[in-house]
């Protein structure tokens, strides 16, 4: 592996964000994103969290046109 050094540079040639800074944001984003994606892509098909299908019907065309299985 190549060695790393902490230095101050004038131009960003290869900024590397430490993993310990990324991980908490990654977890937060993944949970939130999966929830949104579940509603847009899967709700009321194979999985149903809100039983009346209102959310599903509202975003229905987006789901088809984004290429997710719908019905």
């Amino acid at each position, binding site marked *: 592996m190549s060695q790393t050094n902490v230095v101050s540079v004038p131009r960003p040639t*290869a900024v590397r964000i430490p993993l310990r800074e990324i991980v908490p944001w990654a977890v937060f984003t993944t949970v939130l994103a999966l929830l949104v994606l579940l509603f847009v892509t899967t709700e009321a*098909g194979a999985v149903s969290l809100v039983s009346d299908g209102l959310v599903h019907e509202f975003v229905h065309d987006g789901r*088809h046109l984004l290429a997710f299985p719908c*019905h």
Partner: protein
Amino acid sequence: MMKTLLVRGMLAGLVAGVLAAGFAYLVGEPSVGDAIALEESHGTQAHDAASHDAASHDAASHDAPPHAESPGRAGSGDAAAHEHSESPDHAAESDAAPGHNHGDDALVGRGVQSTLGLLTGVTGYAVAVGGLFAIAFAVVQGRVTTLRPRVSVALLAAGGFAVAVLVPFLKYPANPPAVGQAGTIEDRTALYFGFLALSVVTAMVAVAVGRAAADRAGAASGGLLGVGVYVTVMAVAGALLPAVDEVPDGFPGSLLWDFRLASLGTQVVLWCALGLVFAMLAEKALGRGSRDGHAVTVRQ
């Protein structure tokens, strides 16, 4: 820094979502509308045949004189439109597939589905993807690629589109309303998301393999090896997994083609816009960080 990148990723997603929704409305909605019109005039035989025995009876009831609402009234979602959906046939249909009500017996009218609903769905998806994209960029920048941020972002967007959209689409292409049997929605969902997950995991492994090889044999060889690993695994998986072929007899081929092209085009617009906007924003974010004199970790 991570928070800044995340906000910018989601902002890029928002812009990309609005543009993609505009494309989907102009290019995709006509075929969605045609497919729904076909579905309703043909009595949705493809769904019913699979989901319950009363197929012929159900089809006959759909062929009866059309429901009374005008399109405008169906869109208003008033109480009368709901009462109408309580006939035994419709109830049975809803049990089999909660998700396939459009038009007459829908909770949300077509006018809303094809405009505000479309915009919300596509934009929600794009913002979520934008957030995940920012995380992926933060991980690869300075580790997998040491190129300047905007070049890394462009490569990541091209790769992300191929892995998250194009490859799953080649195996399990998008289908318009009226294509697909209600009874198999769970299998089709599992297959689609399984293949999508396999694609993402394989891509991560391929990147790690390629990166390790690049340290020894150079960037070109590492890149080729990574792409080779990914393509080989996905080709084998694609050949082994079952196909989904549920296009009903008599469904127009040209309509299916138009819909699928519009669907792929929507995703192309989304990922191109996401890549371009985030490239600009990430370059600025990382540039400003270092001009402020922050210490940054660099590869030697």
